[in-house]
């Protein structure tokens, strides 16, 4: 599974390098909707799903806050050895894996260079999560989910559902929703002048 997923990223990079055509954003959105729809059906088919959702809402909230704090704090600390300021290092990680949005927002609000750093850093987060999730899920499912950041509701939701139980998949989707809503907000707070 892991090899399959990593090679599809690598194959994509190769094709993108040598072929030139545009993949429309609408097509990507439709594919994302389909994925989320299918995972939704799988979770919904579970017995007692409503009760489980109720139990899991506080867990989703705590989990999301911890992912945000952990990411920002630990990335900020890298400012001691990367030559970035605390604010820059923290901001570059604030996409939580959502590379397209964070790269563009930081380029606009702050500097194109830090935007590129953030873009790359968030791609690395997503690719690293493909490796981390199957391995770490045996030790801690929430820990494994946290590495996916905001992508736990879309691209990595399939991988998570294959490696964790249904409660954790539900938490992963919730974490993805809350983080995706927070990312634009956090980046504007860190880099906004007004």
């Amino acid at each position: 599974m892991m090899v399959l997923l990593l090679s599809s990223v690598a194959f994509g990079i190769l094709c993108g390098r040598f072929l030139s055509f545009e993949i429309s954003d609408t097509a990507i959105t439709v594919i994302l909707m389909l994925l989320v729809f299918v995972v939704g059906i799988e979770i919904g088919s579970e017995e007692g799903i409503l009760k489980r959702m109720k139990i899991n809402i506080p867990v989703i909230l705590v989990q999301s806050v911890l992912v945000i704090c952990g990411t920002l704090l630990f990335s900020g600390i890298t400012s001691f050895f990367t030559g970035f300021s605390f604010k820059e290092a923290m901001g570059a990680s604030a996409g939580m894996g959502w590379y397209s949005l964070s790269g563009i927002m930081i380029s606009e609000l702050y500097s194109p260079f830090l935007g590129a750093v953030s873009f790359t850093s968030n791609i690395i987060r997503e690719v690293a999560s493909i490796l981390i999730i199957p391995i770490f899920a045996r030790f801690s499912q929430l820990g494994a989910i946290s590495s996916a950041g905001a992508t736990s509701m879309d691209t990595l939701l399939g991988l998570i559902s294959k490696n964790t139980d249904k409660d954790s998949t539900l938490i992963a989707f919730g974490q993805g929703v809350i983080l995706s809503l927070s990312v634009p907000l956090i980046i504007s707070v860190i880099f906004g002048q007004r």
Partner: protein
Amino acid sequence: MLLLILISFIIGLLLGMTKKFEFIKKYKLVTIITVFLLFIMGFEIGSDGELFDKLPEIGISALVIAVSGILGSMFLTTVFEKIKNRFFLKNNSSDKI
């Protein structure tokens, strides 16, 4: 886009609750779609020539930032999970999709 995804998830959940769509699990749809999405992600990185040229310069700091961000969130959430399982709701479901 976020709204569209949320709506698709909720529709999926509701349809799943009718228990009429369990046959969908037989096809490896989730894996197939994930492979496709990651291919698209790779494709977008590959077609960005400017990013490729800058990569040696920004790669290392991006890696350091990504790794510490991941470690930070994994550390806090793992501790949270262990505390939660120990003192509050014992999570004994081990079923995998």
